[in-house]
Structure formats: structure tokens, C-alpha cells
């Protein structure tokens, strides 16, 4: 056995192989030679020891290859009890496969052919409750950083053959696996093709997370609005796939992307579907109000105090004037000062470990707030408004949208300072135009508001009961617009006490 290893021709053979030159420089690259005990066939394993599961190798592969009848490569498929065994003569694949956690098997007799046996070691975090999109009611699963595990979570909820996953590899260095899921017969093939095309066209070396993909394939790359919805909830993905949308699963990212999407979708929490429709409609409206409040309240404060004191009710006037009596800053600087303080607190809270973060919140909120009012840096009315608007901005269920909303306040402040209420409305015009021009996968982002689709209002600003949700959203142009037969769910018309 050993004598074979030292044969010079084998050595030469090894040096000839281009692909090995680089690999041997890594310490974790292993190349081990064995001889089958029955047939005396010599074979060799090449693999990266850090990404394969040694346990699989020791128990499921090696014993069989050493002890069973092993004459040629094709025998592996028969004797090794593993599902993913591939035989190929394409040398260019080798590197890729080894780095994907395959074990390369070569035998002395067949120099041109190789076998790959999958033995990936999956280090997967356990499925934990969702943290960003937490809900009190409903499933408590969230995605993890492995594409396999994530697909498992989705497939469990849609056990049908029509759920199709197409896989692409993106990134010259990262070789990230990207799975594109849709339900055949429902999703619009045009949307699917657009997504596949856009992902194929991605020119980037390294894809670390799904948010990279959002920014690269969005219709408008310069918009502060997220144009693809991301979620960490398998239940949401399953429901949305059934609606006819397309999901993009990226390996290494616990967030799954959904396209096409609309603005109103960002303000619907998935918990809305777990509550009675009256309650969830109410909560949705509250959230929309919160968004408007959060964007507009400080600009309106600045505008009225700087330009339109006539608007202020008589009873409020004394409160406002006395609270601002000691403040040296004009309203705009006062507002910017407080807004930036809140942003600082949020940023500090986000960067620090959870325990310390809470302390910072208390210190910032209570100490800085009261102290700055007492020191005469801000008025307490504005302090209340800024705190409320910060609170309101956190009600947005999708984290990325919450960030956008917080940033939007600043241009509004600037215009409020410039032209008062006129400036606020002017800035609103700019925002409205921007939103009107946005598209997600070529579908208007403001749908169903504009283009007005009354049918799609059933699940937009409010949510109607499930019996009314018998049609899929129109803007998706699904191949099968009907979700279920409405007639069967209708209540029978009965008289009293019958």
C-alpha cells in the first residue's frame, strides 16, 4: 500500500493536476489514499476537511468503499448509501464541488473520470422565534442562515409539486446559492423571467446577504424605499407564494425576499391575518396614521411656529410660548437637535449589546430629555412631539421601511423651514411623485391606490374577512386569479330560529 504512494509516476500525476496546485496550499485540504480490501483497487479521497462532515465520511462512505466489491467508479452509486453521488469527467467542476463540500473520489484505473459524494457539514443555527417581525399570535418560526433549512421550512407549508425552486449561483468569489421559488400555474411567468434575468445579470464578486440582492435588482437603485419586501417568517413567505408572488432565498441570509411588492404591503404585519378582520383593519389604519404623524408632526411644528402663529388655537398659545420662552434656538434648530438626539439614541441602542442598550434608552430618554428642557435647550412641547413621532415610526412592521420613514422627516423639516406649510406640501408633492414613479418588478409601487384597483383594496389599507379574499391581487396578473370558490363559504340565508 505504501509502496504505491511513493511511486514516482503517481507523484508526477499529482503535480500535473492544475486544480490541486492551489488547494494543497490550504492546510485543511486533505488527500488520502486507500485500497479496497476485496478487489485491491486503489482509490483516493480529496476534500476540504473543514467543510465536510467527517462523521459521514467515517460511517457512511469509507467502510463501504473498503469492504464492498469496488471495481470501477460507477460502482460507488451502488455500494455507497448516499443519495447525492455524481460521476463526471469534467475536470473544471472539481474545484467548485470540493468547495461545496463534496468528497472527490478518484481511482487508479480511471484517470479521466471522478466521482463526487456529498458530505457537507451543515452548521445551522436552530430555528428560533422571529425577532424583527415578532408576533404574539401565530407561528414562532423564523428563517436561519442555511438555504436548505429555509427551503425545508417553506416546503413544509406548501407540500405541492407546483412549488418550484430554481437555483442560481451568484458572486464571483462568494458563489452564493440563490433559490427562486414560485408556484407554477399561479405566478406570472413574466415576473419570474424578469427576476431570473436580473439575478443572472448581477455582476458582483461577493454576495453576503439578501439585502445585497435587493439593492442590486431593484427597479430604482437610488430610492430610499425598499422595493422588495424581506421577511424572516416562513408563514408569510408561504402565504405570499400562494398569492402568486415570487420568493428569493439566498444562502447565508435569514431574510427571504418577496417580489413584486407594493407600498401598502410594508405597513401590513403578518399578524393581521391572525386577528379578526375588524381588529386588523383598525391596526392597519393606526399604523398608516402613525406613519403620517411620524413624518409630518415635527415639520408642521417648525412651520407653524416659524411662520403661521395665526393657526395656533388661543388655548395652546400660552403653553407654546411659555415653553419656548427660554429656548435660544429657532424652531428648526430646536427640532433638528432633538431629532438628531433621538437618532443618536437609536443608533447607540442598536450597536450596543441588548442589556446595555436598554440602559442607554433610559438614560437618553429620561435624563437627556428632562435635562435639556430644564437647561432651556428645547421646549417640552417639541420633546413630546419628537418622542411620539419616534414611537410612531417604530410601529412600521417592516424594519427597513421604518428606517426610510425616519429619514424622510429631514427633507420635510428643511422645506418647512424654507416655506412653512407651503414647503411641507411641496415636499409632499416630491414624495408623492417619487412614489408614483417607483415600480417593483415593473409593477407600480403604489398599487392599489394608483393605478386604482378597487378589487385589491380588500387587503390593503384595511383587511376584509377571508370570505371576501377569494381573488388573488389583480396587479400580479396571476395565471389563476381565483383563490377559492366563494359560493361555498357563503353563509346560508336563514330566518331567525330556524
Amino acid at each position, binding site marked *: 500500500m505504501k509502496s504505491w504512494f511513493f511511486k514516482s509516476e503517481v507523484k508526477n500525476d499529482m503535480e500535473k493536476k492544475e486544480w490541486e496546485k492551489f488547494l494543497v496550499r490550504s492546510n485543511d485540504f486533505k488527500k488520502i489514499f486507500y485500497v479496497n480490501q476485496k478487489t485491491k483497487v486503489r482509490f483516493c479521497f480529496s476534500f476540504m476537511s473543514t467543510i465536510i462532515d467527517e462523521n459521514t465520511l467515517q460511517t457512511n462512505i469509507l467502510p463501504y468503499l473498503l469492504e464492498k466489491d469496488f471495481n470501477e467508479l460507477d460502482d460507488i452509486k451502488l455500494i455507497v448509501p448516499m443519495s447525492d453521488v455524481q460521476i463526471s469527467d469534467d475536470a473544471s467542476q472539481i474545484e467548485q464541488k470540493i468547495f461545496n463540500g463534496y468528497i472527490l473520489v478518484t481511482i487508479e484505473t480511471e484517470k479521466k473520470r471522478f466521482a463526487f459524494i456529498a458530505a457537507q457539514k451543515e452548521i445551522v443555527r436552530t430555528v428560533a422565534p422571529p425577532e424583527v417581525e415578532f408576533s404574539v399570535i401565530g407561528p414562532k418560526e423564523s428563517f436561519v442562515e442555511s438555504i436548505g433549512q429555509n427551503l425545508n421550512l417553506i416546503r413544509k407549508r406548501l407540500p405541492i409539486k407546483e412549488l418550484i425552486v430554481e437555483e442560481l449561483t451568484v458572486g464571483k468569489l462568494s458563489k452564493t446559492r440563490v433559490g427562486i421559488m414560485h408556484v407554477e400555474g399561479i405566478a406570472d411567468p413574466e415576473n419570474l423571467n424578469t427576476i431570473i434575468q436580473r439575478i443572472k445579470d448581477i455582476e458582483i464578486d461577493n454576495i453576503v446577504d439578501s439585502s445585497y440582492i435587493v439593492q442590486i435588482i431593484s427597479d430604482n437603485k437610488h430610492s430610499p424605499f425598499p422595493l422588495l419586501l424581506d421577511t424572516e417568517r416562513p408563514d408569510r413567505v408561504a402565504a405570499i407564494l400562494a398569492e402568486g408572488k415570487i420568493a428569493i432565498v439566498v444562502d447565508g441570509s435569514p431574510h427571504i425576499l418577496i417580489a413584486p411588492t407594493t407600498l401598502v404591503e410594508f405597513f401590513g404585519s403578518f399578524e393581521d391575518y391572525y386577528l379578526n378582520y375588524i381588529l386588523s383593519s383598525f391596526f392597519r389604519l393606526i399604523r398608516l396614521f402613525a406613519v403620517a404623524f411620524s413624518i409630518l408632526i415635527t415639520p408642521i411644528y417648525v412651520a*407653524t*411656529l*416659524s*411662520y403661521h*402663529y*395665526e393657526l*395656533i388655537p*388661543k388655548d395652546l*398659545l*400660552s*403653553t*407654546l*410660548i*411659555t415653553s*419656548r*420662552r427660554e*429656548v435660544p434656538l*429657532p*424652531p428648526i434648530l430646536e427640532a433638528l437637535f432633538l431629532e438628531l438626539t433621538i437618532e443618536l439614541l437609536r443608533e447607540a441602542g442598536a450597536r450596543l449589546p441588548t442589556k446595555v442598550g436598554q440602559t442607554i434608552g433610559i438614560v437618553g430618554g429620561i435624563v437627556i430629555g428632562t435635562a435639556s428642557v430644564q437647561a432651556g435647550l428645547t421646549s417640552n412641547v417639541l420633546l413630546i412631539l419628537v418622542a411620539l413621532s419616534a414611537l410612531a415610526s417604530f410601529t412600521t412592521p417592516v424594519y427597513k421601511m421604518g428606517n426610510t420613514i425616519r429619514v424622510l422627516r429631514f427633507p420635510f423639516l*428643511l422645506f418647512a423651514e*424654507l*416655506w*412653512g406649510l407651503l414647503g411641507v406640501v411641496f415636499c409632499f408633492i416630491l414624495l408623492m411623485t417619487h412614489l408614483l414613479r417607483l415600480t417593483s418588478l415593473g409593477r407600480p409601487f403604489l398599487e392599489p391606490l394608483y393605478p386604482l384597483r378597487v378589487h385589491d383594496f380588500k387587503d390593503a389599507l384595511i383587511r376584509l374577512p377571508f370570505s371576501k379574499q377569494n381573488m388573488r391581487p389583480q396587479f400580479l396578473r396571476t395565471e389563476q386569479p381565483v383563490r377559492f370558490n366563494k359560493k361555498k363559504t357563503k353563509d346560508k340565508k336563514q330566518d331567525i330560529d330556524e
Partner: protein
Amino acid sequence: MTNRFGVGLLSLFFLTGCVQKEILDDIAIEIARGYDWKEEDKIEGTMLVYNFQPDKSIKNTTLTTTASTSRELVNYLQEQSPEPLSEGSLEVFLFGKKLANEGLIDYLDAPIRNASIGARLFLVVVDGNAKELLNGNYGNRGNAIFISNLLLHNIKYENLPKTNLQLFFRDYYEVGKTGFLPQIKKIDDNKLELNGISFFKTDKIRVIDTLETEKMFYFKLLVDKFSEGSHIVERDADKAVIRSISSRHKMKITKRDPYTVTVHIKIRGIIREYTGPGTLTKKVITKYEKALEEEVTKECEALIKRFQEQEIDPVGLGFFIQTRTRGLHLKKDWEESDMYKNLTVKVVTDVKVLESGVIE
């Protein structure tokens, strides 16, 4: 290149695009203004400015000066004020009685021309001196708020007909109607009262007659379409306070050439207080109803007679006749015409007492 140009243009835009600011705490907010007659062609103007104390109470700060026109007055007062005076929150305009008798036409142009003055502004005639009245101390929310709240609640629940800047000018410009304004009087440094309604001649907007407080109940019945109010009805030994909770009037032309107008007044009221020897039985209530009916008819007819003699028409009879007569285009000064003098007005009153409280 284009980028640099864009940035330059944008910064220029933000630098020069700004407009004049009126930051709330850097201006002197004027809430009431008073005009008084000083001498021939000279008026004395008083401004009441918000002055908030740290404990949120309001101190009454007034500025006074003499000038010949209203605009000049504001300019002179700016010289007295540490901060720019702003007129946007004006609540009350006061006119001294003497000035009102001379004519207000020159001083009323400002509030209607100035876009920043609201239409709910109260115009008030002061029985006495406006400056003295503004220098008093009424309530703890400032004099202007005190006056405007006083008027507001009297309009809403008591016997003062609806009035404000808009309504006064509406009547002033209307053909066949003349304006009226409430009149207040300072009692002492901490008290003032509503003490009547002043009627104006259209020509120079001067006061020609003032209605006493007791008659305001009847006047309101004639002027306001729907109104509330309260009135004391006296009968021999006993009296009752009747509160009208809903009353309305309807006019009808019953005869033309010369015109006869019948005014139907309908009052639905409740008895709020009763003092007298007997108990308040059904019979007594009916008697009160009758008494009030007679009283209202008599007083209203007398009021209109009085207006006809003074050649004013605050009820708007001319306006009413014009809206009911095709092709009749009255002249602006129709109050002085024979037609108005020869007009006969009949008042028909219908009173019903609905409730008389929780005791029998």
C-alpha cells in the same frame, strides 16, 4: 460639471429662497385693539399685547398712542414695541362711544383689507372709553379672551344675536339691512358687562341708537333665525324665568303696496324658575304662555316702529321684501325712503312651555 452646477444652484436656492419669518416667541401678538376719539381728526389707539408670565398666566400689556389714521397708529405703536407687532391673532376691536357716534368708516377698512385678520373677530362698541376698558384686569386669561368669551356665551345661550366682523360687513353691504354691534361697559377694574346693542347708520357707520339690555331678547327673536335666550315674565305677584330652548321666526308678505309683513315667532321654552304664591299648575303655565305671547308681540312691534323712526333696518325687512319680489331693486339707502316708513309689520307669536323642571 453639471453636478457642481446643480449643487451651486441648490445652495443658492436655499439661501435666497427663504421668506420672512414670524417666530412665535419673537413677535408681539396683538389680541385686542381699541380706538377712541381724541380731538377733531385725531384718534387714540390702544393695543393689547399677549404677555405670558412664566406661570402661564397672562399679564395685560397695553400700548397707547395718538394718531390721525389707523395705519399711522400701527406704525407709531411699532416704535413702542420691543418686538414686531403681529395682527394675525386679533380677537376684539373696541370702539369708544364717542368715536362710534362720529362714524367708524375710516377705521374699519384695516380689518377687512388685511388678509391675516380672521372673520370671527368681534367688533364691539364701548360705553365709555376703550383705552380705560383695555387697561382693566378681567379674568385670568387676559382681557381679550375675557371679552370674546363673554360675547360668545351670550350669543350661544343668552340674548345677544350672532355678530362678528363677517356678519357686520355682510349687513353693511347688504341692500335693505343695517348693521349692529354689541356694546360693553366697564363696571370697575375687574368687571365689565354687556350692556346693549348699538345700531348703525350705513353712511358713515355711526351709532344712531342703542338698545337696552332688557329688549335684547326681542331683538334676537327678530334677527336670528334659530336662537336661544331667556326672559323673565312677570304677572301680578309672581314671576317666572322662561328659557327659550328653540325659537324661530318666519316672515311673510301679507299685503303689497303699501307692504305689510307678518312675522311669525315661534318659541319653545322651559320654565327655569318660578316664584309666586300658587303652585305651577297646567293652568298657570298656559297663562304664562299667553302673557309671553302678548309681551313679545307688543315689544317686537314697538321695536320695529323704533327702527322705522330712526331710519335703520337691522332686522333686514328691506332685504326680505326684495328677495320675495321680482324686479324690485331697492336702493342702498332704502331706510330713508317712504316705502320703509309706510311699511306695516305685524307680529304673531306662538309660545309653548314644554317642561317645568323636576318638581311639581
